[in-house]
């Protein structure tokens, strides 16, 4: 925004009239409205960035951040040196990518289907019911999983036995872990995530549908040629945002679900760091790893954004 400054004498006062300041004056209540949020972000998000220094220091409680000695990349190296480093990265990324790959279609599909439903009452009820799992705590979801899948007395295995199959030890086999993790994640969040898509659907102009009907399109063709391109910007933005969370596979759910028997697929960066720092408040190590995660996330988002700008015209910035 270019600042056009115009200095002028008005009466006896020397007033700086600039477009910028005038605009500000006109909109000042809007600015005041957003001020608390800005302060919030400055105080809670930007100022604490000072703590990133902990990653490069040998942090000790008594000396505080300023007094602790610099160690440079020592903790990063300690992390990279671990024999499990590659496996951790692989597990973390695979879980995230599969989550995105499988997790994105469901809310979109659900939104499209719900859109086709004629009965508005049913639509509202279905939508609300679909949100419920989102509010269930992850601890409870895992608890349910463990109970239903128990090889001793879980419903699924009892059914399997009755049908003549061998009971499967779901929670202890590596090949089931990702399926269970992502599957329950989809069940929990597809309803909530579909909200944005449903909102985007309403912004597609009706004339497009009407003119396509005139051209003889049936509902299915309408969905493919109008609806999906219409919400494509939303899909792309959400996709870029979720790439930005790739390295953040949360430890809670994994911690609850894993055991040493399935470390080879289930051990992710956050659970490894958690186990390691149980052996002694390793603030510096944990911060170093977090910083590494953030850096990777940012690079990925940056790349995805660039690609998206080239391929479509939609991008975050």
């Amino acid at each position: 925004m270019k600042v056009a400054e115009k200095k002028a004498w008005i009466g006896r006062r020397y007033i700086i009239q600039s477009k910028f300041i005038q605009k500000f004056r006109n909109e000042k209540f809007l600015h005041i409205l957003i001020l608390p949020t800005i302060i919030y972000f400055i105080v809670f998000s930007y100022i604490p960035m000072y703590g990133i220094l902990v990653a490069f220091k040998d942090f000790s409680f008594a000396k505080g951040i300023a007094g602790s000695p610099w160690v440079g990349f020592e903790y990063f190296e300690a992390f990279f040196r671990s024999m499990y480093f590659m496996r951790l990265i692989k597990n973390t990324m695979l879980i995230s990518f599969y989550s995105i790959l499988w997790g994105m279609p469901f809310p979109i599909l659900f939104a499209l289907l719900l859109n086709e439903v004629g009965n508005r009452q049913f639509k509202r009820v279905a939508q609300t019911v679909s949100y419920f799992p989102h509010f269930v705590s992850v601890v409870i979801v895992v608890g349910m999983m463990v109970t239903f899948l128990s090889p001793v007395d879980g419903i699924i295995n009892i059914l399997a036995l009755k049908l003549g199959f061998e009971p499967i030890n779901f929670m202890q086999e590596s090949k089931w872990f990702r399926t269970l993790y992502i599957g329950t994640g989809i069940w929990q969040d597809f309803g909530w995530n579909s909200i944005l898509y449903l909102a985007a659907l309403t912004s597609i102009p009706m004339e497009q549908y009407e003119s396509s009907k005139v051209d003889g399109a049936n509902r299915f063709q309408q969905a493919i040629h109008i609806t999906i391109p219409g919400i494509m910007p939303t899909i792309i933005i959400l996709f870029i945002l979720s790439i930005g969370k790739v390295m953040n596979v949360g430890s809670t759910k994994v911690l609850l679900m894993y055991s040493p028997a399935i470390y080879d697929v289930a051990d992710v960066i956050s659970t490894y760091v958690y186990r390691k720092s149980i052996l002694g408040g390793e603030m510096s190590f944990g911060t170093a790893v977090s910083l590494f995660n953030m850096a990777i996330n940012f690079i990925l988002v940056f790349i995805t954004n660039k690609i998206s700008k080239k391929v479509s015209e939609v991008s975050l910035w």
Partner: protein
Amino acid sequence: MKRKILCYLLLLGLLLSAVACGSKSNTGSSENGTENTAAEITQPAATESIAEDGYSLPIVSEPLTLIFLTRESEDTGTSFNDNKALVWQEYEKKTGIKIQFDAVPSSNLEETVQLRLAARQNVPDMIQIPGQQDGSYLTKYLQDGVIIALNDYIDKYAINMKKVFEQYPVYKQELTLPDGSIAGIGDLRASKYQFRSQMIRMDWLEKLNLKMPATPDELLKVAKAFVTNDMNENGKADEIGMAGYGDQWKELGHAWGLHFVTGSGMTVKDGKVIYESITSQYQDFLRYLKKCVDEKVFPADWISVDKKTNLARIANSQVGIQVRTPAEYALTYQDPNDSMKKNDPEADWRIIPAMDGPYGKGIFVKEAVAEIWRTVVVTSVNKHIAETVKWLDYVIFSEEGQRYNMYGIEDLTYKMENGNVVKISSELDNNKPLKDGTWLGYQYMPGIYTTEGDEISYAALNLSDDNPALLSLKACWPYLEEPFVAPIPSLEDGKRISELNADIITYRDEMFYKFLTGKADIDKDFANYIKQLNSIGLNEVMDIYQKSYDNRSNASK
């Protein structure tokens, strides 16, 4: 114009209140309004001119409050934060020092302690830390200056503690950090009743006309018999041969002479520190465990089953053998008021005697003399260290204090007869609360557990001298071994160990499961497994421990 000013003022007010509500107050001893500035933490409290030796009750002439961050009560219906614990009220009456509790559930305690110390906010006067088994965190906190060394204060004031140190020099040794300081006070376990054992249901054995197993293979056969018969007569095939959770299955290794002391996984033989998970005994033991898994005597979810489910199955009469129980359970299970007995009066649990393993007679491992899993430390914000040490000496080590901690309140839950303690059964036993919430609150501080002390506690059960469960416990005594308590390493060594240990333990545990589920071959892949462990750094870790062990042995000579 007026409206505008009003708006601005309102906004300012909102912002200010948001900021004010967000800030936390720092607390130390509430009486003297301690401030928690950085200066306070880095300087240890100046040693007061230590005037007198010892102390007398009450410890203080004016009321004093100390803030104690500790584990919240695990007994249902009770809470330390309510201040209804009778034993603690007695402490206050006798010593004049009031304890203000900051009780946190034990699962959050470690995190809370670390966060408070890192942020230097809300640091209390005393903390009961749920320690890790190697004590290196104590060294770290000491070096950081957040806790203090108590040696001088102990020498001057803690008369009872010193007596106990003289009686049990190993206790003092295990509490001492590499630089000679004593910063944390933990349990003293010197009782022959406190060791780990396996237990079996005698009534099930009798039902099937089987003898008490004398070798691990016989144990396996018996477990298999339990699984294939409907022992609890409920028409369902829900019996479990051997029950446990986590990595308790390793306890069966006692028959191979393996100790598997929690945490360190090491033992010492002829002055050499050995890592048990790479020995040939371990390899042989793995073969046995694999047999158990293949024969399905472990429950199908043995890898992931948790403590609560395991307990429920035992209470539900589904279990024939428990792979790890504290030996004293043999006695408490006989107590008609104990929930086990109430649930299933027919269950007759006995300790399995030392079995004949492939390397000789099996062993039983005593609990370590100094248990540092719960340690009380004094922080550097404490302005009344002398009084605190006196209080700790009274509560943990004095004869009266021990009685409070072990037995409760005189004439309420025990009485003195001819100088001996005799337990009185009361509704308050086992920390059960009365309707108005009052409860005893005992046995939460580190305690002194001696053989004589335990015998007094169990005397109330009135077990005859030839009670079979009691005999099965005493039969283990010839085979009791002291556990090896890993020496506490110096700070740099501690860092290196914790860096390497994360990977070592991950790999070791993973391979344990791979060996038992057949994904790795116990015969062919074992040598490779050892090589891998060494390349991760096991050699280095063992060298450090050997060095620390030699230092500790020389220091105590």
